[in-house]
């Protein structure tokens, strides 16, 4: 355990002494960070520095690591369901089924976190520039549009913590701006964001950086 344990209850998510090794290569060692309500933590690092692995560890998708992760002060593994009901994760694979339409995809993925109405989904899609595509199968949409379908979850979900892995990759300039606005809104409403991106985030307040490059390589 580290000597100074942060007792501040505002800390939504904290990680202590995280260690992860992959194929005999240390990705990170004694990694500590805190994320409070209304903050953005941008994870930075080169390709292969373990950004995605870190995000997956936080979400509980990857379990070969050492260290402690806590959610509002309590160990995360003791309150998975509570944590998951406040978590929205978007990975490299955006979670959009190619056969289903955006509307059908969102109806399912959002229903996991709470009840939604078709009107809510339609307005979220419209807000992300997908009006008119609600009912076309997703394999007809471009990669960027599929990403937008997945981003529509941000507008609908009540989750307080967003974990976004490279959310800007396939978006056009307009999409980048939309997403930045979404992030800013979320933070203003007391939500938190854990994000990996090479993009320079244009969010006014509460942005912190976590650099992975210098952690692992000794």
């Amino acid at each position: 355990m580290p000597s100074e344990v942060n007792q501040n209850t505002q800390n939504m998510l904290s990680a202590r002494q995280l260690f992860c090794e992959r194929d005999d290569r240390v990705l990170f060692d004694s990694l500590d960070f805190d994320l409070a309500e209304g903050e953005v933590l941008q994870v930075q690092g080169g390709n292969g520095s373990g950004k995605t692995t870190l995000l997956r560890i936080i979400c509980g998708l990857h379990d070969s690591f050492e260290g402690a992760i806590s959610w509002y002060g309590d160990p995360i593994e003791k309150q998975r369901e509570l944590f998951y009901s406040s978590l929205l994760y978007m990975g490299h694979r955006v979670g959009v089924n190619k056969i289903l339409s955006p509307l059908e995809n969102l109806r399912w993925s959002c229903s996991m976190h709470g009840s939604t109405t078709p009107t809510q989904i339609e307005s979220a899609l419209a807000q992300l520039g997908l009006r008119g595509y609600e009912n076309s199968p997703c394999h007809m949409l471009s990669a960027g549009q599929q990403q937008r379908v997945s981003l529509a979850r941000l507008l609908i979900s009540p989750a307080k913590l967003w974990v976004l892995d490279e959310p800007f990759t396939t978006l056009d300039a307009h999409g980048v701006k939309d997403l930045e606005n979404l992030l800013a809104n979320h933070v203003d409403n007391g939500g938190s964001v854990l994000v990996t991106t090479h993009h320079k985030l244009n969010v006014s307040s509460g942005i912190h950086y976590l650099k992975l490059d210098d952690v692992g390589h000794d």
Partner: protein
Amino acid sequence: MTESETEIIMGERGISTFEAFRATLKRDLLVAFKGRNELLNPLMFFFIVVSLFPIGITPDREVLTEIAVGVLWVSALLASLLSLDNLYRSDYEDGSLELLLLSPHSLYFMTLAKILSHWLVSGLPLVLLSPLLGYMLALPTEAYWTMIVTLLLGTPILSLLGSIGVALTVSLGSRGLILAMIILPMSVPILIAGTLAVGSVMDGNPVGGHIAIMGAMLAVAASLAPLASAAALRISVN
């Protein structure tokens, strides 16, 4: 009307596990019906394999009667194996599986929903088609009901066991035969119980015991297989 009703009932945004179960079931059925080719594959396979036997062995009714049950069961097993990959693979590839794993609901019920949907689109049609194929194989009239009941109990077990195998292998690049090697040995008891039941009714013996054993197998599989699948899925996404 119904939409606004649900909105009123669901004052708070949280939904029950049952609702999530229903949403997942509905989604998977929708995916299955929208990809119609995949839906018909196991059924066509079942039909073709069974109809090859009279051609390949002999059209002699007595011989066919003898092998009918075995042929039907083995073909059902292979057809179910053929359709299993749909269970989690596309979800794994497009990332929906991660969303499922990160849902606040018990993964047990979510996998159960997916398995139920898989059985409804691949197992149940086989059961419905089986009387026709039984007729083709000169199955004696008294054996029809037993065959339908045992298939009705047995095909869900095949989906349940298959789910464990697919969950274990979903992240492997080249699965090839490994899925069959995991699932087929586990399916042998069902094959034995199913063929024994139909065989004993053809010999004029009571079948209650065989059917009870299959029922018990189904109960055990339904309670344990989703648990094993859920654990296997967590390992697979690692």
